[in-house]
């Protein structure tokens, strides 16, 4: 997907994902965010409708403010700490997840399946991979211990029937299987792509389309997905990106490091 126009305003797929994901965040929440789209989305929410939102970074940062144009290259550099409330060891910031302080985790992935399991470790078999991906980072911890928003491009090779490897557990095999495997807390909550916003059926835990982005049909979403998607009866259409939202994203990432 290349540039779309919102009335007269053009935006990229990444900008669309960041804006739509940001709208899902609620004021007062504590959000564990990766860099890139998750950080842009969370900062957008903070500046717009959620001023009391607290961002946490895996590197050991609570409540920072990102300086426009100085996005960090990962969650582990000093740019992540600007005007933070607290800086602490990275193990301890992850333990906040286990203690239960985090409302939502926010990340991407290389592959996702019907039950929201994410793979960021191996394409192909783990003992003889076609591609060795960078790995879990904090992804496994975050998705094991809290609710998740996933932000990624909607492509058939990424939305697969079965992920090659469960790096970050979603609903495992659906139904109650996540809790039965020993993960009683959290779970996959939303998947935001450049085509739609998806959730998971309360019972079967299969992925279902909740809302379509402007100009996108359900069939188009299904065509870009490697498994049959459910759709909620009251499927809606998301509101167009507003010019203020786009302006803010571009102020934050003027070099389009994460939104090209």
């Amino acid at each position: 997907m290349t540039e779309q126009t919102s009335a007269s305003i053009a935006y990229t797929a990444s900008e669309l994902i960041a804006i739509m994901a940001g709208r899902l965040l609620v004021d007062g929440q504590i959000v564990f965010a990766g860099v890139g789209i998750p950080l842009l989305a969370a900062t957008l929410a903070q500046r717009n409708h959620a001023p009391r939102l607290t961002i946490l970074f895996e590197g050991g940062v609570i409540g920072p403010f990102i300086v426009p144009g100085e996005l960090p290259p990962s969650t582990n550099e000093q740019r992540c700490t600007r005007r933070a409330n607290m800086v602490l060891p990275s193990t301890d910031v992850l333990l906040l997840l286990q203690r239960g302080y985090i409302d939502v985790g926010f990340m991407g992935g290389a592959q996702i399946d019907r039950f929201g399991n994410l793979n960021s470790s191996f394409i192909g078999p783990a003992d003889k991979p076609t591609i060795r991906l960078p790995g879990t980072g904090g992804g496994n911890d975050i998705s094991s211990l809290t609710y998740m928003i996933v932000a990624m491009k909607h492509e058939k090779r990424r939305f697969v029937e079965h992920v090659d490897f469960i790096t970050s557990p979603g609903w495992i095999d659906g139904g109650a299987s996540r809790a039965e495997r020993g993960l009683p807390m959290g779970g996959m909550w939303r998947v935001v792509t450049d085509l739609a916003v998806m959730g998971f059926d309360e019972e079967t835990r299969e992925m279902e389309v909740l809302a379509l982005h402007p100009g996108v049909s359900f069939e188009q979403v299904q065509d870009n997905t490697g498994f049959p998607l459910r759709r909620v009866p009251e499927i809606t259409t998301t509101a167009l990106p507003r010019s203020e939202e786009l302006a803010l994203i571009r102020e934050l990432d003027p070099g389009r490091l994460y939104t090209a």
Partner: protein
Amino acid sequence: MSKETLVKSYDTLRRDVAARDRGLREKVMTLEEAATLVSDGDHVALGGCTLSRTPMAMIWALIRARKQGLTISRSITSTEGDLVFASGLGRKIISSWFSQGIVWGISKVMRHHVEKELAEFDEWSHMAIGLRFRAGAMGIPFMPVRSMIGSDVARIRGDEVKPMNCPFTGERLMALPALNPDVALIHVQRADAYGNAQLDGLQFMDIDIAMAANKVILTTERIVSNDQIRRAPDHTRIPFFTVEAVVEVPYGSVPHECYGQYEPIFAQLDRYAALTSKDPVAGAKQYLDEYVYGPKSWPDYLSMVGMETLLTASRRGRVIFND
């Protein structure tokens, strides 16, 4: 006793520490002298994370000293991991994530070595790595955790993790094995000649790594007097008795950053990415020849990075103090 034992016995742990001279004594030495404290085959843990406070000068010195067969552990691994594999310094890296950094895509050097089975990248969750170091730091052989359960990250670890139930609540947990490295390499903003170290800003897993390791090789932006340390003892983060070497290395994390001192040298990181994305073998070799084996000394390497580049990185590194 094999260096590859998953969990060191308590007897070994205690004997190793007891054998060290832990009295207050000066330990200042050169990078080259400190490199002799690492033996081929050692398990070496690296402080810092991704592009931050990486003990780069010490890794550089170990590669130049032609050390081999190390096992490396680190929270998140970036270009230093590439150099470890490409130079033969190490053949196994224990980490939660390994690539130069999101903006440069997946490391071709990591992919080459792992996919061709020339080296191993053992993946653990980020918190699991941290808790393995923490258990090691605390002198306990395992630590229970509520993540990794039910995922393939745990499955491929086989017997290296043990599912267990809480003896009080019966809740399902995962037991993680303690990690007690032979040596920890840690770069800090300041330390005294005895090894009392202060760390500004992001600490990552460094304190636990220092306590877990049998000995610490400390590189520091500058050596300060013991009097300065004693003026604010609540700012000391690593106690002297864990430390075996103190090496003053200004810009010791270049081309990575050091909190409050300098930002990463993006130009050098871009150059590295360009070299290795074309050809991971030839590109890494060229980089090693040029920047690791080539320079006469660390300051000589810094000269190649360039004065203006360093001053700009320093100016940007100090920007947090403007807040």
